[in-house]
């Protein structure tokens, strides 16, 4: 308590105020809402902490704020510890924050919603910005913690499905302070490399605080700006970070992300087997087709026609020859008969002339008797005169 009559200088007054306040409020914990948050280029944070009745300006030096796992946003409630400091030249007091955390899970949720809405309004999650994921990657970049299970899982999946791919790992912290900066750096590093076809950001399951780095604005923006497509595989099925919304593709887990990024060599084996089977079928069919065309041609009417013609003609010839031979035989027979008839008649004609002269033909037993020695007396005899026959009974 100071004596009212003592006249103090301003400096002295302020010095006493400083001493009083700084001693009194050496280690305090305060809860309030952030406003006017400004991270300085130097790394120091400047903001106000307020409630409905009062406001106090705060500073958090780079050395202290680097351990904060989240980037404060206006509107969220935080719990801070630290001390009061008085700055005499300006005549004001402020709260020098040593540690900071969200006032509750609910605060993180709010921060999440606020940032997500802000970035969504900027269009960062729009479909038109999403890049297609290549189907047959040669090199896959991975941003992950190399001491994590996520890392081991992703490797074993790549090895099983498609060992032909090359994995390029950009190690990074995936939680806690500095994680967001690490992740951003890793994404940028992979973008500078040549021939990386897709990047997977992988991190195993955890609480909202554990996964918070993936809700940080700098991480989300660096995913958006990445020239290489990014698949996010963060946490478990139910976990959604803002990184999941901005990524070109979201996978439920790091393992799922690697499954998506890699083709399955089993599919290629199947494709090749199908090819071998189908192409053999096609070739066989082709051969059969050609063969059938040849057979068809040979069996066709056009092909057979000359042969048919030949056969028909030869059959005709046979017929004609047969007819000819039959006719010939007939004719021959006819002529032979005619000839014999004619000669007989000729013969008989000669004989008639002789008979006309007065000679007589003697017949016995229907045989002509031309010599007396042949004559049998007492036998019945026929005498053939020119004008007829006479019978002589013996």
């Amino acid at each position: 308590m100071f004596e009212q009559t003592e006249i103090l200088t301003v400096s002295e007054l302020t010095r006493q105020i400083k001493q009083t306040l700084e001693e009194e409020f050496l280690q305090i914990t305060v809860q309030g809402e952030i406003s006017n948050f400004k991270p300085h280029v130097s790394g120091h944070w400047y903001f106000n902490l307020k409630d409905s009745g009062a406001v106090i300006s705060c500073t958090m030096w780079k050395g202290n704020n680097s351990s904060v796992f989240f980037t404060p946003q206006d509107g969220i409630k935080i719990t801070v510890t630290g001390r009061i400091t008085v700055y005499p030249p300006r005549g004001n007091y402020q709260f020098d924050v040593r540690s900071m955390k969200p006032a509750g899970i609910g605060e993180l949720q709010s921060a999440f919603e606020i940032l997500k809405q802000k970035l969504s309004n900027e269009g960062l999650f729009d479909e038109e910005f999403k890049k297609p994921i290549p189907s047959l990657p040669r090199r896959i970049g991975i941003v992950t913690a190399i001491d994590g299970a996520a890392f081991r899982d992703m490797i074993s999946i790549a090895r099983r499905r498609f060992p032909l791919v090359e994995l390029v790992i950009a190690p990074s912290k995936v939680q806690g302070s500095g994680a967001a900066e690490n992740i951003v750096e890793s994404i940028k590093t992979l973008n500078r490399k040549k021939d990386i076809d897709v990047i997977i950001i992988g991190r195993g399951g955890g609480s909202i605080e554990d996964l918070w780095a993936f809700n940080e604005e700098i991480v989300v923006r660096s995913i958006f700006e990445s020239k290489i497509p990014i698949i996010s595989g963060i946490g478990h099925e139910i976990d959604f970070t803002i990184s999941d919304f901005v990524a070109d593709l979201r996978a439920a887990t790091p393992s799922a992300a690697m499954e998506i990024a890699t083709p399955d060599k089993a599919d290629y084996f199947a494709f090749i087997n199908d090819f071998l089977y189908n192409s053999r079928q096609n070739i066989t069919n082709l051969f059969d087709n050609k063969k059938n065309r040849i057979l068809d041609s040979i069996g066709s009417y056009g092909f057979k026609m000359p042969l048919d013609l030949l056969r028909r003609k030869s059959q005709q010839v046979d017929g004609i020859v047969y007819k000819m031979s039959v006719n010939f035989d007939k004719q021959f027979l006819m002529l032979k008969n005619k000839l014999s008839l004619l000669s007989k008649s000729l013969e008989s004609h000669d004989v008639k002339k002789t008979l006309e002269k007065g000679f007589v033909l003697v017949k016995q037993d229907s045989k002509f008797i031309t010599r007396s020695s042949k004559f049998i007396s007492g036998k019945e005899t026929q005498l053939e005169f020119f004008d007829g026959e006479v019978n002589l009974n013996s």
Partner: protein
Amino acid sequence: MTKKTAKDTFENKLDRLEEISHLLESDEIGLEYAMALYQEGIELSKDCISTLKVAELKITQLKKNLDTLTTDEENFFEE
């Protein structure tokens, strides 16, 4: 200039197999051409299968940059 890697040609071989597959399905293909394609397809298939079978996963790890953390507490009220 990108170096031609095993994966490059693997992808090309698969594309060619697909191409041959379509060609062999067409009706108007000549017999000698079909035989040549089929032969090529068999060779490519053998290649691809063996590439897949012998492949070993290659892993490259990039060096992590060391964080530089300073703990200097600068003056109050820096603008």
